[in-house]
């Protein structure tokens, strides 16, 4: 079972709540996804047009809210949003995002580390959104991050896990859970992440903008379960050359004639 900061999660699929056509479809899609962690953003209330509050559509007893700091361009802005998020949710959970470039929305590694150091000391459970940089992941882990969230591809691109090599290194090295975030555009991408050993994935756009978001949410649920099963079952190694399945053929070994019997 997935555990982050001593909290257990029954699903390895986290879903975002943005970009849905309506609050009702969002609620149904989240139901179908089986997720128990949902991300939310913080924004100023539009006083001329005060829309519904998203929290009223989701049962907070059932869903664990993970507020993000989207929109923050610096560590300082992210910290301010984090404190507001804590006041709003009453919990210290936080998806830390610092994205200074509005075009790519790629995360700033330096300010992300800076903000993580400060927020972890303030008692936040910080899950930083990062580029798939293994050393950064370890530095964040050392700074007190509760998990790391490397991107598969820039957010909203649906390009899949283009950072597979680095994500694999992060998974191999990190002690904290690894949640692949951003870029996951199809259930097969999510399955691939779980097969690689990622602890969870976060999906938003791919579900929200699907022709049938509820059905797509279910497809992601199944893909995540399949991917995790495959990982736990132990995948056979991929190879570009054929390997005979009988032991004595097909493999050439080193000459070990120097070994002496009985020595």
């Amino acid at each position, binding site marked *: 079972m997935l555990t982050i900061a001593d909290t257990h999660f029954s699903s390895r699929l986290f879903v975002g709540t943005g970009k849905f056509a309506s609050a009702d479809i969002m609620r149904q899609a989240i139901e179908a996804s089986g997720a128990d962690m949902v991300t939310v953003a913080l924004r100023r209330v539009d006083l001329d047009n005060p829309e519904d509050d998203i929290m009223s559509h989701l049962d907070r007893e059932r869903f664990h809210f993970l507020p993000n700091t989207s929109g923050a361009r610096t560590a300082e802005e992210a910290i301010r949003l984090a404190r507001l998020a804590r006041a709003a949710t009453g919990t210290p959970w936080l998806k830390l995002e610092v994205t200074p470039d509005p075009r790519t929305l790629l995360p700033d590694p330096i300010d992300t580390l800076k903000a993580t150091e400060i927020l972890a000391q303030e008692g936040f459970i910080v899950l930083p959104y990062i580029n798939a940089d293994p050393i950064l992941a370890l530095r964040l882990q050392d700074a007190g991050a509760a998990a790391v969230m490397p991107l598969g591809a820039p957010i909203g691109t649906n390009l899949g896990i283009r950072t597979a090599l680095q994500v694999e290194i992060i998974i191999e*090295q990190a002690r904290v859970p690894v949640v692949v975030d951003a870029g996951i555009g199809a259930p097969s991408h999510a399955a691939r992440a779980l097969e690689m050993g990622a602890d969870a994935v976060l999906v938003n756009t791919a579900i929200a903008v699907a022709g049938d978001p509820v059905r797509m949410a279910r497809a992601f649920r199944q893909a995540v379960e399949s991917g995790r099963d495959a990982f736990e079952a132990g995948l056979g190694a991929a190879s570009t050359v054929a390997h005979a399945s009988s032991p004595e053929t097909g493999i050439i070994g080193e000459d070990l004639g120097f070994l002496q019997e009985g020595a």
Partner: protein
Amino acid sequence: MKDSFTITDFAALQAQLADIPAERVLTALARDHCTDDDLAALLSPAAGSFLPQLAARSRDITRQRFGRTTQIYAPLYLSNYCVNRCAYCGFSAGNRIHRRKLTLDEAVAEAEILRGRGFQHILLVSGEAPAVLDVEYLEAIALRLRDRFAAVSIEVQPLEEDEYARLFRAGITAVAVYQETYDRRVYDRVHLAGRKCDYDYRLATPARAAAAGMREVGIGALLGLSDWRAEGLAIGLHLAWLRRRFWQTGFTVSFPRLRPAAGEFQPLVAVNEKHLSQLIFALRIFDPDVGLILSTREEPRYRDGMLGLGPTRYSAGSCTAPGGYSHEDHDGEQFSVGDHRSVDEVCRVIRSKGFDPVCKDWDRTFQQVVEPRGHAICTRV
């Protein structure tokens, strides 16, 4: 609670190794990244039939990661005083051997002899007698040697984290501390007296050294005390545990086989060259980055044959008695070596096999004192 590494059930490791089919060995051989189960498969009796295949895989990984190089170092024995009674060791407190501890000047003189022979990496070794050989002494030696060598390592009694940090500041960059055996039952049986009787304290030592900021930490088991396959699995688990926690530390594994020593202790289990080779290949395949050490305990034929197949570091021209480099007619050895060739002869063989003998791996000139989290706090002057 501070987390710590432990082997709660050595017999469970042995059970994990039994009855692994040949197909499982092939799966492990074909993997990019090995799991604990893959390591078990590579150490299993079934894998013994695939030794040439293990060797080829180990050779390829080693060559890709380390190139055609072999690191060279020499041990410098500082003292053979020891408070422990270890059934297998020549320094054991009960043995009637000539005991001595080098003075600072004698130690530096020995080091100068090694430097004259071309060594730039030395390993300071001693028995475990803190009242005779303490941190102050090691610190004083380190301060005198650090500008003469590229790397100075220690293999002495287990120390506390702050003591390792102090030695690191003085110029010690690596620590080796071998568990001897991960099999607690056997451990208790062969460690008859002394601080070393505390299995858990010893097992936690590599983590203390890494936490203190050491660049490199060496672990290992003395082969011949318990089931070598399960020891190999335990080493792999220990290594993986350390890597997860101390990602800025380099790690090495050593494979000392019991050699004849004073006290006439006979190995409890037989570990032959094929076994030793399988263990080395399996650990190389399991961890492509780990430094693997093959000392002069082994014979020239075996050491030469293993060049390039997995080990990355060889000792050469070693003497295991304090003062043995200055005085030919020494006694009081820890064990008798199997490879008596000079460093020049060893290097000649290494070159003839197409490898470059490397006497220094990196340069301490550039070293900063770093705290464990990785933030530079002050530059060494």
